[in-house]
């Protein structure tokens, strides 16, 4: 389980962001998490809460938006949603999709702060 390491990196980044803006009172953290990121959503939520303890983010809430897997189909020349995360092919023409467009994100999108 590497979600704790990820949660710690995430918190460090948010605190850095907060410091650079003169200290923010963060209420909600919005994270975009790809289904192909290798990170488990529930484990990350659990780890986040633990890792926040004693930091300026203690009591903040983590909201995770799941980003679907999208591949580029070179035959259809379009972005496509594959049938599953273990079948990276175009749902229309069946061609294998070698290029991943979305699904690998682990990204803090925004922060909700007390104004």
């Amino acid at each position, binding site marked *: *389980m*590497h979600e704790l*390491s*990820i949660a710690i*990196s*995430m918190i460090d*980044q*948010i605190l850095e*962001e907060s410091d650079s*803006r003169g200290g*923010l009172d963060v*209420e*909600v953290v919005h*994270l975009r998490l790809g289904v*192909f*990121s*290798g*990170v488990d959503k529930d484990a990350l939520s659990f780890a986040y809460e633990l890792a926040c303890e004693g930091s300026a983010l203690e009591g903040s809430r983590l909201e995770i938006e799941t980003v679907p897997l999208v591949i580029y189909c070179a035959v259809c020349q379009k972005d496509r949603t594959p049938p599953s*995360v*273990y*079948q*990276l*092919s175009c749902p229309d023409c069946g061609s*294998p*999709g*070698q290029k*991943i467009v979305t699904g690998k*994100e*682990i*990204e*803090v*999108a*925004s*922060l*909700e*702060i*007390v*104004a």
Partner: protein
Amino acid sequence: MSTRMVEVRAKVMKQNDLLARALRERFRKEGTCVVGLVSSPGSGKTAFLEKLLAGLAVDSRVAALVGDLATENDAARLRRATPNVRQITTGTVCHLDAQMVEKALESWQLDRIDFLFIENVGNLVCPSSYDLGEELRFVLLSATEGEDKPLKYPTIFNSSDVAIITKMDLAQAAEFDLAAARRNIESVRPGMQVFEVSAKTGAGMQAVFDLLHAQLARARQPQLAATR
């Protein structure tokens, strides 16, 4: 009390990714071909690496970093092939990251190393999120594990460049369905090169040596062009 939104758009893995990129540039500059190895525990990473090191050491300078939660056992095994082996003991951490690799390289002169292998902690989940700066990543799957491993762990297979099916000498006894394994690999990582090997008998190893030599030659080509 009101709240407001602040846009951040910060990649959580940024620090690791930046460090990995710097390492990759350094490896290229020094002309070292760096290969990462990932697999589940017990899939034969160390036996495969022993064979790789011994085979390549005949005409090349080789080195290895090996990650494990505990013990120096793997490093001791690999030192039979080359003295240039360092163990990275991660404690409780289930993967290597770029910083551990950078630290483990301390005082090594990379320009005197042709091939450097980085054996990750045996784990098919966590290492997929961490770029280590390697030029190629090998994912190993043993014939005794079952052919559906790629479907169960698509992320690690997709984050790798080459698949190595190990323990082929046991394939028949384990009723391993090679065609299904190849199909499953193709499904999660279309176009991936697949090698079948037995570290025990040495079968299939030559093809891997050829791939690595070709990779090293390619890596050094721009340098030759630059010095001309």
